């Protein structure tokens, strides 16, 4: 648990903010943090956020304004401090011999792909990123990702890139391995085509470190905590109803 300092906290895309925190520990792509929104009991539980990027003592979060907690976060200014539980979850597993990989992100699911793409790039891997958004306004991270990988975009309304759902994008199934983050419906559709990849899951969390059993899913290997055994799972281990 650390007290991190807000370095910047700015509008990033439609309903999405970017917060850079200093004083952080190093993080692997795919790990997450639990953020205490404020002292006192106005927000009893911490909020989970993926690492968008982590460099030296800087942690970048990208957060979508959903409800009370994320709305409150937009009011923080540089110099404010946040109590953060760090280095949670397992992160994406990278096999340096696996070159032909793609990243698949739907909506807020694109956020953790930034750090992953950068890490893959450092390892000499240049994946293709398939990103799906609702509409042009909510699209983000395209220029950042373009620097380290190829980017293909779909929007539901066709205002940017191809029209339609990202998981209907046939090209991505030509890659031999994927890293997918996004809504359950998207993940399920992908898993039904191929389980050659890793998927990051989300669930409401009580603790974030494996103590409360709040985030349990059944996998082919038995019950697993998304917060501790995940959030990244091998697609082949997941069970879909």
């Amino acid at each position: 648990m650390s007290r991190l300092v807000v370095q910047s906290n700015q509008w990033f895309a439609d309903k999405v903010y970017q917060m850079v925190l200093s004083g952080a520990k190093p993080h692997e792509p795919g790990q997450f943090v639990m953020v205490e929104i404020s002292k006192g009991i106005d927000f009893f539980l911490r909020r989970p956020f993926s690492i968008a990027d982590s460099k030296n003592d800087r942690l970048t979060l990208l957060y979508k304004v959903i409800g009370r907690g994320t709305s409150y976060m937009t009011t923080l200014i540089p110099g404010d401090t946040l109590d953060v539980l760090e280095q949670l979850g397992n992160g994406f597993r990278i096999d340096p011999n696996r070159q032909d990989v793609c990243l698949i992100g739907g909506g807020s699911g694109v956020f953790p792909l930034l750090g992953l793409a950068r890490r893959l790039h450092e390892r000499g891997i240049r994946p293709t990123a398939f990103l799906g958004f609702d509409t042009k306004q909510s699209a983000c991270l395209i220029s950042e990702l373009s620097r380290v990988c190829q980017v293909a975009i779909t929007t539901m309304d066709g205002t940017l890139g191809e029209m339609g759902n990202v998981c209907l994008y046939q090209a991505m199934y030509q890659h031999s391995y994927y890293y997918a983050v996004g809504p359950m419906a998207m993940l399920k559709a992908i898993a039904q085509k191929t389980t050659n990849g890793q998927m990051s899951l989300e669930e409401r969390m009580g603790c974030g470190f494996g103590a409360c059993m709040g985030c349990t899913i059944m996998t082919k290997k038995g019950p697993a905590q998304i917060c501790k055994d995940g959030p990244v799972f091998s697609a082949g281990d997941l069970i879909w109803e």
Partner: protein
Amino acid sequence: MTVSFLGWTLDNPIIPASGTFGFGLEYASFFDLNQLGSLTTKAITARPRFGNPTPRIAEVPGGMLNAIGLQNPGVDDVIEVILPKLAQVFQKPIIANIAGSVVEEYLEVIDKLNSEPQIGAFEINISCPNVQEGGMVFGTNATLASDLVRRSKQHSRKPLIVKLSPNVTNIVDIARAVEDAGADALSLINTLVGMAIDREKARPVLANKFGGLSGPAIKPVALRMVFQVFEQVSIPIIGMGGVMTAEDAIDFILAGATAVGVGSANLRDPFACPKIIEALPGLIQHLGWSNIKSMIGGAHEKRHHRL
């Protein structure tokens, strides 16, 4: 800071509450568990349980709801895998929380755990609101509760703590019934039954619809029940419900608790217990008391002296 409880001497009265501390292992990476007075395990059942579907957690004003549904790996796995691991990081006697759908399931778990030397006491959970069978059914009916406790007592070779449900018209009736049935101590309170609504989706937030309310929101109810029960029973009480700080812990002791359970606070802040333990001596001194024992029940007009 020491208190006598069930014949042991606790180094301090702070005990993580069942279900919020797993089997201790996750917390061992945050701090040295031996700082704790004791610790309570997640509920243990005869066979592994997966629990309820997710979402199992919701935030509510001043607290949270949970509907875990007694997820645990079952008593055999606890004995073979978990207790040996725990022995490496915690050397004091622990409290094993026990649950079941039927009386026989409780007895089976007790029989199996009886010979585990790490376990200092059993906490019979008759108050889980998140399962269809057993759980709270026992805790809301004095006859069923006292029958379960009597039979558990016959099997148990360790002291028996009974964890009561606050979802009752008269907590004193239940407390008296289980005391008469042979309980050695009481834990109160478990969670209040509550719910949250996802208004965008027009449906309950929790897959289980209802869940157990915990956290500061329930502290006034918990304090009241500890206070009422203290006056009417003579076995010691582990008081809990919304304890976040040393101040909260002291309130429970003044109401009549001998030890204090810390639940949801651990989830928000894994260092909650060591922080409370560190703050206690200064607070006790500031309040003008010489030790914790003398404070037990201190808020009652006629204070009982039962240490």
